[in-house]
């Protein structure tokens, strides 16, 4: 009796009990669908986060005020405004920091924008022309801020696509006027569409000269020219650590700090952010997939249960087959294969439902779901494997049945 004949026999037996087989497969189906969707959700989130983070500029280093190593007296990260415009100025020096390409100090506030009858509240970013280069953004229409705008404190703004749409609809924003907290600004440029990076929407943004921002909203810290962050970009991806070192040395020196552990600022390379975010979403995926795996396990126990019932029901058939010359090995193989087919068919159906879910669900929950071929093939293999593993016990029971006990039972 070869495999094809055993498979035919297994298939016929499952068809014979189709209602029960379908219910058993449902258990596997739910498990596989859950695994595919949770892993897909996790991978989707991971891809989203990492693409958003690398969209920020891959050679980017972010300097934030406050220390990451919180001492007894020092406040937490970002609690103090210890970064100033003159820090940014110093970092721009090609002499002191040759590996730093661009420096963009940033002062953040939030304000109501008005254009005609439209209102919109958006984060206002006071910065310098270098911002677009450092954050890897492009001005797609109009012009960027200029150094003259910064030194003169001009009331000009570059807007993100979402702000433009909210305020001006489909009219091109460049050349229009809008009020920021009641002060009129000329819109001189529009940024490219960048999407959202985790919590912040990179298209809901207004760039104005940092000097104008400070005139308008006042300083955000104890010093007159305090800034909330300084973005710097390394000259290339290979000089990120050199740029990091130069910025660190320079700021320690400027701030008069001798022990690096006492630093009142924190420099975070983009890669660190990326790996942190990735590891967080990975952990979440693992957790969800673990829960889904439990569902799959329960499905497997369902297979074992139904196979045990099947063996008990078919004691007579097993005895007859043995009397006609079936070896224990062949009986084992037949029942194993039945269990395996239960798992396999349930798994295939689960993949179909999972892929369907991956297409439909993102429309409902606005999260992307990534279906990787590895996950699909893997889950089919796992489903069949689970059928086989949980089929071993019932099948070996069938194989061990004595033919006379089996024949007598009918």
């Amino acid at each position: 009796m070869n495999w094809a004949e055993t498979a035919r026999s297994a298939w016929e037996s499952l068809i014979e009990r189709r209602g029960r087989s379908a219910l058993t497969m449902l258990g596997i189906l739910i498990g596989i669908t859950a695994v595919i969707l949770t892993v897909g959700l996790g991978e989707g989130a991971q891809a989203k986060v990492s693409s958003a983070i690398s969209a920020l500029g891959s050679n980017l280093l972010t300097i934030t005020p406050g220390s990451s190593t919180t001492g007894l007296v020092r406040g937490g990260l970002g609690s103090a405004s210890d970064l100033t415009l003159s820090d940014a100025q110093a970092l721009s020096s090609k002499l002191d920091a040759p590996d730093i390409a661009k420096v963009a100090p940033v002062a953040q506030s939030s304000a109501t924008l008005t254009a005609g009858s439209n209102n919109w509240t958006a984060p206002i970013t006071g910065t310098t022309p270098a911002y677009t280069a450092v954050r890897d953004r492009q001005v797609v229409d109009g012009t960027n801020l200029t150094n003259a705008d910064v030194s003169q404190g001009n009331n000009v703004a570059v807007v993100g696509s979402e702000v433009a749409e909210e305020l001006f609809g489909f009219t091109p924003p460049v050349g229009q006027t809008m009020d920021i907290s009641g002060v009129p600004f000329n819109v001189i440029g529009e940024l490219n569409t960048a999407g959202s990076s985790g919590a912040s929407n990179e298209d809901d943004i207004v760039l104005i000269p940092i000097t104008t921002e400070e005139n308008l909203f006042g300083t955000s810290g104890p010093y007159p020219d305090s800034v909330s962050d300084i973005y710097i970009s390394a000259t290339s991806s290979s000089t990120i650590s050199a740029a990091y070192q130069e910025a660190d040395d320079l700021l320690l020196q400027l701030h008069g700090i001798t022990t690096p552990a006492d630093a009142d600022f924190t420099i975070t390379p983009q890669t660190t952010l990326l790996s942190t975010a990735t590891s967080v979403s990975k952990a979440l995926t693992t957790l969800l997939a673990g829960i889904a795996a439990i569902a799959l396990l329960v499905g497997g126990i369902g297979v074992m249960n139904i196979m045990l019932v099947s063996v008990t029901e078919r004691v007579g058939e097993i005895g007859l087959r043995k009397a006609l010359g079936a070896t224990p090995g062949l009986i084992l193989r037949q029942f194993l294969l039945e269990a395996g087919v239960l798992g396999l068919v349930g798994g295939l159906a689960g993949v179909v439902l999972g892929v369907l879910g991956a297409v439909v669900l993102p429309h409902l929950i606005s999260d992307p779901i990534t279906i990787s071929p590895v996950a699909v093939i893997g889950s089919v293999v796992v489903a069949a494997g689970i059928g086989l593993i949980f089929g071993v016990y019932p099948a070996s029971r069938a194989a061990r049945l004595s033919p006379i006990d089996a024949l007598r039972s009918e």
Partner: protein
Amino acid sequence: MTGQSSMEDDTAQMGAVETREDTAQLVRVSSTRGDPGGAVATLKLAEVTKTYGMGDVQVHALRGVDLVVDEGEYIAIMGQSGSGKSTLMHILGCLDSPTTGTYYLEGRDVSQLDELELAKIRNRRIGFVFQQFHLLPRISAWRNVELPLVYAGVRPRSARRERAIEALASVGLADRVEHRPNELSGGQQQRVAIARALVSDPAIILADEPTGNLASDQADETLAIFEAMHDQGRTVVLITHEPDVGERARRMVRIRDGKVIADEPTARGTSR
């Protein structure tokens, strides 16, 4: 107590067996069939006992049975229910093993054979016919009949189908090939089961109450097939509790309480 009585039985049976030798020779000489298996079909039980259950509740199904069946014999084993005749049949069919004693099938000590060899013997050398037919209900007649060939590894499927149809035709069911068991009468079902027993061309046919569930006309048809199998030279062992069925054989062995109490030729056996 058991020991003593079995000793007595042994002596009695030894005598009986010796007187049988002559008849066996006659049967062997008169055998005209083309030998299906090639080897000499001999069943030989030596002081076989079978005890079921452990501890306090023990059932002594067989209490020391000696029996020799030669190639081509048509033998009936008669006994009331509980006499141990079914146990005897299970041992003869290699479905069960004796508690003590030895069973030689075609000269081989069955207790020395492993599970695979036993399965092979059941598959190639023995054809079983059961009282309850034991057909698989969901598959057609020919699929039921081909089962032994499937386990024998006969390929391709068309070859098995051909042989299964041939076997069905030999029991007069050529027009019932595609019918399922529930579409057939009891007699037809039993004939399907007989076709299944014959399909691998075994030297030995073991039938356990083959007419027990049949109306008398169907029983006659069935017994006629056994007669034909005997004429083909197969060894036929028929287990029954009905004397008129037993009389169809050439030799009758009566058992009671797990012991052989009589072993003699039937009317047909002596007239031959």
